[in-house]
């Protein structure tokens, strides 16, 4: 239990150990700890941001959905309107087409009637002439009496 040279040897050993620890052990470990602390703080902040962004996203999705709904309703309304328009248009087209066809038919009928009438008139004229020939028992110069016959025919 004597104090001897060991004292100084121990002092030197101790100083060397402390120096070694200070140079090679403490700094890397402490800086790793600090780095991890920063990382964790960053992670927590990122998580917080993520939460906020999620809430924002949800809100925006809701807004988009609402907008889409109104859009869809609008489109459906427009389509319905368009459909009624088309139906109306078709109806009016059909109506006018019908009218046109009717008018055409009527015109045709009239034309046919007129033709028949002309034909009848001519035939009546011929019959009248023939009858007149027979009555007069003599040949009538068609060219001379044409005016009279025509006039007569017109009166039919």
């Amino acid at each position, binding site marked *: 239990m004597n104090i001897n040279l060991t004292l100084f*040897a121990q002092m030197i050993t101790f100083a060397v150990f*402390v120096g*070694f*620890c200070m140079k090679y052990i403490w700094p890397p470990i402490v800086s790793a*700890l600090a780095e991890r602390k920063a990382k964790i703080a960053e992670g927590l902040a990122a998580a917080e941001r993520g939460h906020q962004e999620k809430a924002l996203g949800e809100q925006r999705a809701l807004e988009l959905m609402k907008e889409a709904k109104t859009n869809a309703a609008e489109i459906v309304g427009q389509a319905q309107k368009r459909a009624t328009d088309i139906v109306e248009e078709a109806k009016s087209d059909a109506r006018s087409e019908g009218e046109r066809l009717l008018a055409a038919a009527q015109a045709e009928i009239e034309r046919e009637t007129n033709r028949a009438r002309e034909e009848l008139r001519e035939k009546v004229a011929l019959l009248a002439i023939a009858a007149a020939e027979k009555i007069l028992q003599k040949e009538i110069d068609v060219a001379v009496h044409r005016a009279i016959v025509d006039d007569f025919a017109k009166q039919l």
Partner: protein
Amino acid sequence: MASSETLTSQEYIQHHLTNLTLGWHPEHGLSFAHTSSDAAAMGFWAINVDTMFFSILLGSLFLWFFKGVAERVSAGVPGTAQNFVEWIVDFVEENVRGSFSHKNAMVAPLALTIFAWVFLMNLMDLVPVDLIPHLFGQLFAVFGADPHHVYLKVVPTTDPNATFGMALTVFLLVLYYSIKMKGIGGFLGELTLQPFGKWGMPANLILEGISLISKPISLALRLFGNMYAGEMIFILIALLYGGGMVLAGTAGVLQFVWAVFHILIITLQAFIFMVLTIVYLDMAHQEHH
């Protein structure tokens, strides 16, 4: 157990409390001390080989383990070893931050070294008292030495050289930082001008001088005393093993109880040495006025 027939209890205790001293004996020249009076005769120029060996071994173990972790340290998910090291580093750093209010990159590594080293040296106390010395004695007996005169103390902190070595290094640091932070004048002023003002200078010097000198002495003696007493109790318990069945059984129980209690003591002593070092260095950095 080593308390064989040839040894009396006193000799057994004496054997356990003697260091393996290598030195220059006035009669035998450079040799290991065979008796404690041999060691005393060697005077100052002798070295306690066992203290040096175990303290360096344990210190290197600490540095090797921590260095290994420090090399592979990552800020990501730590492994088991890194987790353990970080736990200790965190603990030390917290203590330094709590007690040391200045900027000094040396204090925290110093505190870590003290804590780990002192703890490991104290831990040797939990190795059964006779195990290593007995094996060592048997080993030397192979080379023809008398095992009863081959001494070995495995707990370096029961050697005042080790505790005073650390305490004096801390003391030198206290002096260095006192002078560095306050200047020689400031340091001397601190020693002489308070608490009684400049007319009470001699009294001031005595009071402050005592308080300054008492720092390393109390630091070293506290650790030494605790460890020495703990070792002594282990030795006394070990003596009971030679006293028949009943005493041996009692000794077994006592040894276990004391070892469990000692776990607390060795940790506490390492912690106290660390904290007081931090506090002394903090005081050295502090300007009083």
